[in-house]
């Protein structure tokens, strides 16, 4: 996982790149990291371009991140989901919970047009 702050839209956006797998072994790591990232911002984009696999624990962790973001008047958007990962979001109905974008740029842009904060 890598994290940086993007201010190109005039807002402070946290861009996190999820890499490899998110499963029962490392999903708690994402939740812990997210709590730290929240000290800097409440608007997030998860770049999933390099996310190869996600299971129900990983999905639970991402949903937990979304819930935390919303509780702090923020938002979490997903970008670059591979078809395989997207299929997991689809069958679990998690797709309905998230705003999804084909690339990170359009996800960042969306905060500018209708963003929170």
């Amino acid at each position, binding site marked *: 996982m890598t994290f940086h702050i993007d201010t190109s839209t005039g807002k402070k956006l946290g861009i996190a790149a999820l890499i490899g797998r998110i499963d029962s072994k490392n999903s708690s790591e994402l939740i812990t990291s997210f709590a730290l990232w929240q000290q800097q911002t409440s608007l997030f984009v998860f770049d999933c371009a390099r996310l190869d*696999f996600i*299971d*129900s624990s990983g999905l639970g962790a991402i949903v937990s991140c979304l819930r935390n973001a919303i509780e702090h008047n923020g938002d979490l958007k997903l970008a670059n989901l591979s*078809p*395989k990962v997207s*299929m*997991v979001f*689809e*069958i*679990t*109905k998690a797709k309905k919970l998230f705003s999804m974008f084909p690339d990170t740029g359009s996800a960042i842009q969306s905060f500018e047009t209708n963003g929170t904060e």
Partner: protein
Amino acid sequence: MKTLIIIREQDYEWLDHFFPGIHPLLVPICNKPFAEFLIDFSILAGSEAIRLVMDGPLSDVERYCENGNRWGIPISYASIKNTDDLQTVIDKNQRFCSEDRILIISGFVFIQYDKQYNYKTIFASLPDGEILSSNRGSLRLRGSRTETQHDMGNIPLSLLGFDSIDVYYRLCMEILNDISSPYVLPGYSNEAYCHIGRNVVISKSAEIRKPVIIGNNVQILADSIIGPKAVIGSNVIIDRESSVIGSIVLENTYIGEHLEVQNKIASGNILIEPESGISIAMDDPHLLTGIHQSGSAKSLFQSIVHRLAAILLITLQLIPFLLLTPILILQGKWKKSTNSYFTAVSEKYLILTTTTIERTGPFSTLASALSLDRFTLLFRVLIGQLAIIGSWPVVATPSSITEYSKTKSWYRAAVFSYAETEEWPVNPGDTAIIERYYAAHGNPMKDIALTIKALLNRIHETNTHP
């Protein structure tokens, strides 16, 4: 006429990526193995014998189709090299092909036919040569015709090259959507667009929307939605509040709670999007998993639980056994027979002495009700040769090897049969369904409850161990 079916590995190797471990000819199309469609068509075309020729492995399909008795047509098998052309294949099968008119189905193709149509007369009158062809194979006749020539006209017959997962998916959906059902499909159907197999448990709050085909031993749990357009294979569990719409769930698959499977194919732990051909393998008990046979840890726990249950039963039965057995032996109502039985391990046998009690008179009725005829078998559970509950031990004879080979994936010789927990089984087929169901869905604690149920059922039972 005879039918020669020639299938080459290069034509079906794409299937292995999606359905690993399933022989291409046994891939189910609307819950019916592909091979059965070819056999049905060969019979409709007037064939009196079928030979299946492949350059890949044949053993699985041979085990399934055997000698063709089930369809009333002899089926034989032959291997070829992947370099053999059609003429070489015919030459190699000269004895099969000689004298007779031969229908040659070549390639990995699905023949779209209509079960109502009489193909026999047409095929007997058509000249030598190709009848139909597609990108993946052809249908041709060889040998002189036996009837005067007819025109092919508009007979309902076409070939579909079976070359992608999308073709497979669309074919299943097309069959499902056809009200007149041109093929014989498995399952019970008393209304259009709905075929349901045996031992299907559908929760009251589940919703079934036609068209659907549901296989055997299926559990559809509360608030699930099945269909429209759903094919559910055998031995499948659809967990609570999940929906399967426009999708195919192949056998031995578990669909977890609250899932929405739409326009997908699920096979074990593999989820496939047919249109794009993208597949994802997941082994997540909350999402999608294959239903496997018991693992070693579970087997060990099961074995311990079974042994403890056997000790308890021996303790309870010991005094009645010591008191009643001598009386029954003196009365000639305690009859023993010794046979060799199959064990769960392939090609291993077990010598067992089984007892039958003639149920006439108060002592024998009491002994039967207490299941004393099984008392000596309980010691076999202690040494791990038998399970406390499972399958009836199958007597090892040359003729029962076939029966055993069909059941050996779930067979577990036991003192009590799962079938004894139910009152409805009347024939070996029913018994096999129950045994298979509990073998797939059981667990050690459930086994104890089922053993108690079997013991209680035996109080009223009139017949004894088959």
